[in-house]
């Protein structure tokens, strides 16, 4: 299948909107769940978009911009997964792997911008010191427009410009290679989960991880709701227990202080 010029432009426009959304972290339309669905809609195959959305969202579940870090870009991953599955006829799972270089390209562009926008701080300081709020507003919003525009241009070039060479490349791949990409796509969520665990797993949380894992292995249900409910129950138990502990600690401290005061009195007598 071919991406038309009109479709390429529409995807570019959507990339601008979702790019700004990612920059601001506003409505989360930058997550693959939404990006893939909209891209599928633009290409006239929404079912392909939605299926790719489920797969890509999970592959990127742990790749989050926490604390000012930049993960491989979820927008370009989402757009290119759907576009490559659409143009080459490969399964979305294979396309995730093929989309990865585009995603990493965008990641590095954003990292470059993080450094580059530091040059604006001096000028912003001057405007702030002079109380020039209008000028400040204009300049503080400039990075947003630059980032949005970059997304639009890059998405358009990757989608429309690179489709023919990508198609040739993919079609000349031997079966074991495209199968390898497919396998990689289904293992990829492990990297994201590993990253999530890096930020949150401590020795005392390992039991909960094991409970969740075992529950999901043996509860046969269409989605993760049962595991989430078990998690909520465990969280409530822990919340109440920690609260009680904190209160007891306070009481203990009060008692200790009283005891010390009494002791002083006795010494005094």
């Amino acid at each position: 299948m071919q991406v038309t010029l009109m479709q390429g432009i529409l995807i570019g426009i959507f990339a601008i909107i979702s790019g700004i959304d990612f920059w601001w972290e506003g409505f989360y339309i930058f997550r693959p769940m939404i990006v893939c669905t909209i891209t599928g809609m633009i290409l006239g195959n929404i079912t392909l978009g939605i299926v790719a959305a489920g797969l890509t969202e999970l592959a990127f579940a742990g790749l989050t911009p926490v604390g000012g870090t930049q993960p491989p870009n979820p927008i370009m991953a989402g757009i290119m997964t759907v576009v490559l599955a659409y143009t080459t006829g490969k399964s979305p799972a294979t396309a995730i792997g093929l989309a990865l270089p585009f995603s990493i390209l965008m990641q590095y562009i954003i990292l470059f911008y993080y450094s580059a926008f530091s040059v604006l701080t001096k000028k912003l300081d001057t405007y702030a010191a002079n109380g020039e709020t209008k000028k400040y507003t204009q300049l503080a919003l400039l990075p947003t427009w630059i980032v949005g525009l970059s997304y639009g241009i890059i998405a358009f070039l990757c989608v429309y410009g690179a489709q023919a060479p990508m198609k040739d490349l993919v079609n000349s791949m031997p079966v074991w290679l495209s199968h390898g990409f497919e396998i990689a796509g289904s293992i990829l969520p492990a990297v994201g989960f590993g990253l999530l665990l890096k930020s949150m797993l401590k020795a005392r949380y390992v039991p909960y991880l094991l409970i969740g894992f075992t529950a999901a292995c043996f509860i046969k249900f269409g989605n993760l709701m049962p595991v989430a409910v078990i998690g909520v129950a465990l969280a409530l138990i822990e919340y109440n227990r920690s609260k009680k502990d904190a209160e007891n600690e306070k009481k203990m401290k009060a008692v200790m202080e009283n005891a010390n005061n009494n002791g002083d009195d006795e010494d005094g007598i």
Partner: protein
Amino acid sequence: MESKKTETPKRGKLTKHDVRMLGIRSLFNQSAMNYERMQADGWTLAMMPALKKIYKDDKEGLADSLKSNLQFINTNNYTAPLLMGLEASLEENGEKRSTIDGLRIALFGPLAGIGDAITWFTILPIVAGITASFAKQGSILGPLIFFLVYLAMFFARIPIAQLGYTTGTKAISKIRENSAIVSHAASVLGCTVIGGLIATYVQITVKTKIPVSAGHTIALQTQFFDRIFPNILPLGYTFLLYWLLKKKNVSPVILILATFIFAILFSWLGVL
């Protein structure tokens, strides 16, 4: 004489609408994100109308406040409105500049911790996990639910800003007291769900069959790994990656590339 003037609490009062707008404007928090001082430029942009209203004609005071707000800050985008509301109430009451700045700097770290634990490490895995199970079957419910959840999350910025504004200085001890407990409970929920996600969404199936005697083979996956414990390979691989990330400080991009090389190699060998 100017510096004395800023201490007098002859300041403008924010209306309910102003505080709501502060919640909405917290969207600008990352508008000029950069490595030098992270969110500071966007943070100040979000605070600007509120500060202008508070300082009215006191140009000197406004400039002072803007300059102070331009110090390094990096917090979570959903707890930012709480801190913005809190700061607005302090500015309005004419607290000392050093008090306001000290509190902002003291609180943005703990608030980032609690906000990230709740939004990125708990809500996102749960919402992604559940909506992906719909989406994988081609159901529009997946993206639809996802969108509605995050639309609600966006509008939650308004009550969060109001909470910061109304509780004012009272909020500080509360945040300090409860942030550890809430992050702890969120981590329990998050880890349980991630355990479930590993079992459900990481897929490694070994195709190799080992011949034991003439005409008899053992399929490694169904007759060996699955009999020990289902999904034991995904769990093992995730823990390997976790170990590499945590103890060896390997970059995630390297691990993604390594996963691809590993998958393609084993595909070529016919193992996976």
